[in-house]
């Protein structure tokens, strides 16, 4: 499993995996990312929350703020996960140069977003990519 890549997180970064990850396992696993504040991160190659998972991994992002970020992939990139739940997340004063501010790719289950706040964002976009994908 690729752990979330985070460059210079400002504040407490909290990533939890409950139970060991086993490829192909039917056992439900949970990835939680909550109460993090990332600020003033420039020219990041990766998304601030950047995970490559397996379908049995549920993802929860709760109460996170991404402030003054510039980079290629923006805020969150979640690949090949199980269901995703995002609650009360803020993306502000940031620029991403090509890809999504938030991207879900090959998600195996429902995506639920409750409380998502975009403020003062610019996406310059050299390709046809998107804020939420």
């Amino acid at each position, binding site marked *: 499993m690729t752990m979330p890549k985070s460059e210079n997180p400002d504040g407490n970064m909290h990533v939890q995996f409950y139970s060991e990850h086993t490829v192909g396992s039917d056992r439900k696993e949970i990835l939680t990312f909550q109460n993090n504040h990332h600020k003033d991160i420039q020219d990041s190659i990766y998304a601030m929350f950047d995970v490559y998972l397996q379908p049995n991994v549920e993802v929860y992002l709760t109460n996170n703020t991404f402030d003054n970020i510039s980079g290629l992939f923006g805020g969150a990139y979640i690949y090949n996960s199980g269901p995703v739940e995002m609650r009360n997340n803020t993306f502000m004063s940031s620029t991403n140069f090509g890809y*999504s501010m938030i991207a879900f790719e090959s998600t195996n289950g*429902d*995506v*639920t*977003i*409750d*409380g*998502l*706040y*975009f*403020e*003062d*964002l*610019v*996406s*310059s*976009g050299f390709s*046809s*990519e*998107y*804020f*939420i*994908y």
Partner: protein
Amino acid sequence: MTLNDFRVNNTEVNSQNLVYIDTSIDELVVTNSIFSTIKVGGSTSLFAITSVKMLQMSAIEFSQISSSSADDSGNYMINIGAIDLSSEVDSTIQNCQVSQTTIGFLNFASITNEPTQPRQLEVMDVEVTNSQYPIPVDIFNFERISTAQDFTIRMTRIHFESLSFRLGGNLINMQALISNGLVVIDSTASDITGGSMNVEAFNKQNLAVPAKLSKYRI
């Protein structure tokens, strides 16, 4: 996908879509959301949905949504590539307020999977007010929808007020081949400059399925 309490303010989407779903999904629900002071460009949209079986959008405010450049066209707040009628649940867009914008509200391009029972897209309680369109804009655009089956776009309590189309445009533009395609009831249009309502067949050689406005009551 469910989106609740999604707020976007002072944001430049530019040549991108704000929310893009590039595959066929079963369900998209968007509720209780506010979009204000957003620029889009290059034929993009706030919501670009390739194909959906069941769409529900309600309690949404759009204000000051504009194109990045003055000559951009084809930008919409909601752009539905196709509604897949294999689901038995109809799609609805309701309780939306749109003001001070320069782009269209809804583009709906096609349906897939012919319905076996009467089906509809229901749009109701939408207010479009206080907007000036510098280039031709269709606020509601239903284009190239073609079916011999019973499919209707039902628009109820749609209110257009204080809109100015500098170079023309339409409140509703429908170029389709649907026999019972459009119902507009209990709706109003007031203080409109340069805007029209257009309903016609996109293929005028195919008159077996004429496009017609089945009911319009204001």
